[in-house]
């Protein structure tokens, strides 16, 4: 292992301090005994207990979870399909346009995405609630999934699909029996990414949520405007935990599995 020079050590420390000190403070204060947010009154986990009593928070958490699971699943199905067509469809009319368009939501300001979806829902007379948030999250998470999956498909050895066809599979069977199992790690990490994105989205959710359904980020945001309570610190800590687990799992799954699978695949070819 190389030792870092003092300059690099300092830059690294400063950089990470900048990123993580706010979160660390939040996590520490979620275990504060005192009701006053800025005064340390000893260690306690009582706010976590109180949180579990809070009906409206639990309600919001349930909605958030439902939305995240539904929208990430939908986004994964659609995103994988889109990636497959774009990578495998050959050259069809307007392919460049399509592949450009699928990535556009990545760079589109969320406010605009949210607003346009809101207008659409109002236009077609859809009542805002869980359903509309799911649709909205599917829309923007889908392109992330398709980016992840298509980068895997590009390196996928096409002759495997041809071999499946040669042995009597239809196109759909070849996809189900050969392609999908092999690209599964990418699909799973796409799903986890979409799940995490949906979990912590505030902007798009606030455009598309209605009075009947509020997500946690919205709930926290509006609660904070009435003053930060230790309860919210506790809730935020839990969310940080979930998101961290999601992101870390996603990247681990991707890294490990993809490295392994690609090695398998290369090994399965002649050297």
């Amino acid at each position: 292992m190389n030792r870092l020079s003092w300059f690099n050590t300092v830059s690294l420390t400063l950089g990470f301090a900048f990123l993580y000190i706010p979160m660390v403070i939040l996590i520490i204060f979620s275990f504060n005994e005192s009701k006053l947010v800025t005064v340390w009154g000893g260690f306690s986990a009582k706010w976590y207990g109180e949180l579990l009593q809070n009906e409206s928070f639990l309600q919001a958490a349930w909605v958030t979870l439902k939305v995240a699971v539904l929208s990430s699943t939908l986004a994964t199905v659609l995103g994988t399909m889109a990636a497959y067509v774009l990578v495998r469809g050959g050259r069809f009319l307007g392919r460049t346009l399509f592949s450009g368009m699928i990535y556009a939501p990545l760079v589109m300001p969320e406010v605009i995405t949210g607003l346009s979806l809101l207008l659409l829902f109002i236009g077609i007379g859809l009542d805002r609630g869980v359903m509309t948030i799911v649709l909205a999250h599917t829309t923007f998470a889908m392109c992330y999934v398709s980016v992840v999956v298509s980068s895997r498909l590009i390196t996928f050895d096409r002759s495997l699909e041809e071999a499946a066809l040669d042995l009597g599979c239809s196109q759909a069977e070849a996809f189900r029996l050969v392609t999908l199992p092999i690209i599964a790690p990418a699909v799973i990490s796409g799903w986890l990414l979409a799940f995490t994105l949906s979990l912590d989205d505030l902007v798009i959710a606030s455009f598309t949520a209605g009075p009947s359904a509020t997500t946690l980020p919205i709930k926290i945001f509006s609660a904070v405007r009435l003053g930060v309570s230790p309860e919210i610190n506790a809730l935020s800590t839990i969310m940080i935990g979930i998101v961290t687990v999601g992101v870390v799992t996603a990247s681990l799954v991707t890294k490990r599995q993809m490295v392994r699978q690609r090695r398998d695949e290369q090994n399965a070819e002649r050297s």
Partner: protein
Amino acid sequence: MTIPVFEPWNDPEAKPLIQFQNVTKRFGEFTAIDDLTLGIYEREFFALLGPSGCGKTTMMRMLAGFETPTDGKIYLSGQDIAPVPPNKRLVNMMFQSYALFPHLSIWDNIAFGLKRENKPKHDIEERVQEMLRLTRLEKFARRKPHQISGGQRQRVALARSLAKAPKLLLLDEPLGALDKKLRQDTQFELMDIQEKTGTTFVIVTHDQEEAMTVASRVAVMDNGKLVQVATPDRIYENPNSVYVADFIGDVNIIEGTAKPTGPDQYDITWKEGAEPLNVKSQNSFSDGQTCHLAIRPEKVTISADKPADADNAVQGRVLDIAYLGNISTYHVELPTGAVIKAQTANTRRIARRAFTWEDPVWLSWTATAGVLLAE
């Protein structure tokens, strides 16, 4: 009792199983297959030979249905196969890259095609077992493709394509990674399978000995064109061009000008001052036409003294000796600077060899030993 000769290509009544009709395949500007017409008959063991990139794999991919001809038509049993998708063709292919499914075990790889046919489970198991036995992979059935060696993978690929016992089997370099012993065994197995099942084989190989052993006919390709299609012995003894002669086996090429001296008789002037060579040839040449005499090294005799009644004899000195165990190849330099190879069987122990480096020797051959080729 006479054994009927298997020569459907000489029978005007016979209908080929596969018929390429003026097939051209272009990739953008590049022509991979150039106006190719060819018939391959049922029960044939057809070998494709040619340098890397000459279009062998492309031909197979068109038969399997992964490429469509840019021009021309391909018929299988008299039917145009253009509209038939790969999974509906009674054709199986062994891929040059093997294309084993990395997520499935060896057993499941081999069973993959059988499972698609909805055969009873028992039949599938039996068939897979048979294939495993044939390719000597029983011990590896439960492993994944990345857990076995390169040669074993090649055998899995072969077993997988054989499993469905198709009407037409396309093998793209099926035995390249196997050691000589196993390769020969597998060659005989393939010939055996072919005899039993009547499957038609099209096989790509870089090993001309393999082509000679297994093939009923050999096609030599160059740049997307067929240069010669003939039985192995004809390809070897009667190549139609210097390219084929040079591609198959070892050959001496002597360039000169022809001068007819009688029916099928020619004098070849090949070097200023040297005595003309005496050649009998079926191919006819006009007076003064440039020609190439192709002689296999094993048809050139090497001796210490000038043979008395040889049609052709030239003197030279031994430049190099390649000892190959059963035979030795002598590279003999003529006074003109040309080098001619002569091969002899090593019937004696090496220490008692007749010639060594720098020895003056005579090379001789008969008038019919070589083939006279225009180009």
